[in-house]
């Protein structure tokens, strides 16, 4: 087997295009992915038309909040492109100079103050369905952030008014106004006045005013807390049922490595077996030899057994993919903080994943008669597998998802992805289950490959 392995390495070394692809492809993928996930996403370029009157303000209690503050909040969330008119904004979106345009209509403050009409912004965007989706998501996120910021300012102003009503003092924004009494001070003052009143009926009236002032003070205290609540009515507290949460960046690393490994394993293994058929050497390698009387009619002692040949092709593909995948992980590790203390688990997951994926490759190669057919078959089989393994459960109908799960279960990509995610990110409860699954799939696909090599001519 070692001579066959040496032969395959020599052939691989002389296939410069293939060798270049094997080295360059993972490096490029690793670099692209590394750069993509280590840079924060660019803020969307948005044209903003502010049609509100200069100095227009929103009055909250005694405070006047300028509408320009909202515009400022919005500008900070996007890469803003100030344009004076709606027509120019449309032109910017049409030409692609801006992803979208936001138009702040005149009278925004009046609408906000009216309590009758919700203030409205106009958002313009263009492009195909995907661009529209991206633009809408980006703009809605930016607007939500701006709304939240502006809402916090309004809440701050409202809380100040409530605070003054409770404790007394001067309201900012009311220049020259007298100092307000404050509801909390009323009971003390009224108590003193009531004590000096001779008539019982007057004292009862004062006591009623006192009770009302106390009630008002209590409820305004509550209102202050309610204001904070309605600013962000529901706070989300996430709980993951199993294991550790995988950051999206780290999961992207695992997907990229798994996908590269699958392509390498399957293409190399399938191509390796198919090449033996294409060169007509399979029969020469597997035919019996040195058979004498005792072995009549039962050829034996082949140059290499079918199992040996399949093991050699599987090991070559798996070892190549293992090295490349580990190099990819190490390369991406320069951009993303990976937990190197788990490196033993990485190696285990990479090794078994590479073996299972290569076993799938030799099974495909055993079916094909030539390298081109094997490569085509390998691509046709692997790309849908990758797609299916990444379909989230809630995104398709229940019955169809069961089918997807079943398909993903009988091929090694999803198991490899899960094993690697567990090894790198500690994502799922136990790596042993994934590794056992991969080991079983290795045996199953190797057996299928052996079946495919039953006839060599």
């Amino acid at each position, binding site marked *: 087997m070692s001579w066959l392995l040496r032969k395959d390495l020599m052939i691989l070394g002389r296939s410069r295009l293939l060798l270049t692809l094997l080295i360059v492809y993972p490096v490029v993928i690793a670099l692209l992915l590394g750069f993509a996930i280590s840079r924060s996403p660019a803020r969307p370029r948005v044209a903003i038309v502010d049609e509100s009157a200069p100095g227009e303000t929103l009055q909250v209690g005694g405070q006047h909040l300028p509408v320009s503050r909202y515009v400022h909040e919005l500008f900070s969330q996007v890469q803003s492109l100030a344009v004076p008119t709606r027509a120019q904004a449309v032109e910017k979106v049409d030409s692609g100079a801006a992803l979208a345009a936001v138009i702040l209509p005149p009278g925004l403050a009046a609408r906000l103050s009216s309590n009758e009409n919700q203030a409205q912004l106009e958002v313009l965007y263009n492009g195909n369905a995907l661009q529209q989706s991206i633009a809408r998501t980006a703009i809605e996120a930016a607007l939500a952030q701006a709304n939240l910021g502006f809402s916090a300012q309004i809440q701050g102003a409202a809380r100040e008014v409530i605070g003054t009503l409770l404790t007394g003092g001067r309201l900012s924004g009311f220049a020259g106004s007298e100092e307000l009494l404050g509801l909390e001070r009323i009971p003390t003052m009224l108590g003193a006045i009531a004590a000096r009143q001779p008539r019982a009926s007057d004292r009862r009236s004062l006591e009623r005013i006192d009770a009302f002032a106390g009630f008002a003070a209590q409820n305004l205290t509550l209102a202050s807390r309610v204001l904070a609540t309605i600013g962000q009515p529901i706070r989300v507290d996430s709980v993951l049922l199993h294991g550790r949460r995988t950051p999206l960046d780290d999961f992207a690393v695992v997907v990229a490595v798994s996908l590269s490994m699958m392509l390498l394993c399957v293409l190399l293994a399938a191509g390796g077996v198919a090449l033996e058929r294409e060169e007509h050497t399979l029969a020469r390698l597997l035919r*019996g*030899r040195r058979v004498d009387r005792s072995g009549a009619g039962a050829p034996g002692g082949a140059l290499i057994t079918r199992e040996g040949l399949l093991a050699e092709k599987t090991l070559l593909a798996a070892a190549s993919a293992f090295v490349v995948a580990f190099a990819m992980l190490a390369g991406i590790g320069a951009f993303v903080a990976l937990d190197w203390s788990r490196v033993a688990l990485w190696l285990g997951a990479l090794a078994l994943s590479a073996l299972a994926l290569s076993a799938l490759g030799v099974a495909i190669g055993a079916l094909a008669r030539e390298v081109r057919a094997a490569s085509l078959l390998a691509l046709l089989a692997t790309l849908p597998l990758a797609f299916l393994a990444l379909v989230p459960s809630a995104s398709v109908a229940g019955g169809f998802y069961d089918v997807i799960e079943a398909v993903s279960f009988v091929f090694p990509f999803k198991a490899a992805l899960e094993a690697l995610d567990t090894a790198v990110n500690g994502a799922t409860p136990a790596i042993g289950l994934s590794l056992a699954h991969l080991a079983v799939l290795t045996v199953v696909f190797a057996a299928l490959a052996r079946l495919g090599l039953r006839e060599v001519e």
Partner: protein
Amino acid sequence: MSTVLSVSALAKRYGGSRSRGARQALQDVSFRLGAGELVAVVGPNGAGKTTLLSIIAAVQTPSGGSVVWEQAGGVGWVPQTPALYSRLTVAENLELFARLERLREPRAAVARMLAQTGLAHRAGDLVGRLSGGNRQRVNVALALIADPPVLALDEPSAALDPSQRERLWEFIAARVAADTAVLFSTHNVSEAQRYASRVLVLDEGRLLFDGSPAALLASSPEGEPGHERGAGDLERALVRFLRERSPRSTAPDGRADARRGGARAHPEGTL
């Protein structure tokens, strides 16, 4: 002449049941091969020549019967399409198979085969860049690298020009002189007439004739006394023989086709 290979009641069936397109490629084929014999296997397309050679070379397993190698060392096999690694050089191909054959001195075996096939000056060339003739020489050299007592060649000269063919037969003749038993299939009957000491005629998987070219020739008017023999005579004799003896020309119950005046096929192939 010692026997090196015995084939007995050999049968090969492809596919499952008859209704699913099963085909009987070989049926009750028996013969012996002696050391230093050069035997040609002839017959029309689909007669079972390649199947017979593949089973003898242990590429395929028979459905029935047996192939017994009387001497250790097995059979050197030369497939119709050269079975070589085109991205390895001539020497690398030879060395790989010498190593896989677990020869004691693989490099010496490579040097010997390069010298015998006249390919020493092309030893470092990639096989993919060789001409068809040279590729066939490497193909033969691979079959002989372990110095087997029997050589099975499937249409070895089919892709060669006349001068390459001549060199190939000179090479094979030298092996035969060194007591290697050679069994080759061919469509070129004149080659069988010129080089073979024995001819096996196969048709529809049955062995119809096993004898010398002269005996096959004698079975037809071209072989009768007084008839002047020419190069095409054996071919004409074969065609006539097949017309008369082929299972294709016999009725389903095995009787000869009366219109053609054919005789019933004789599995032993003697005239």
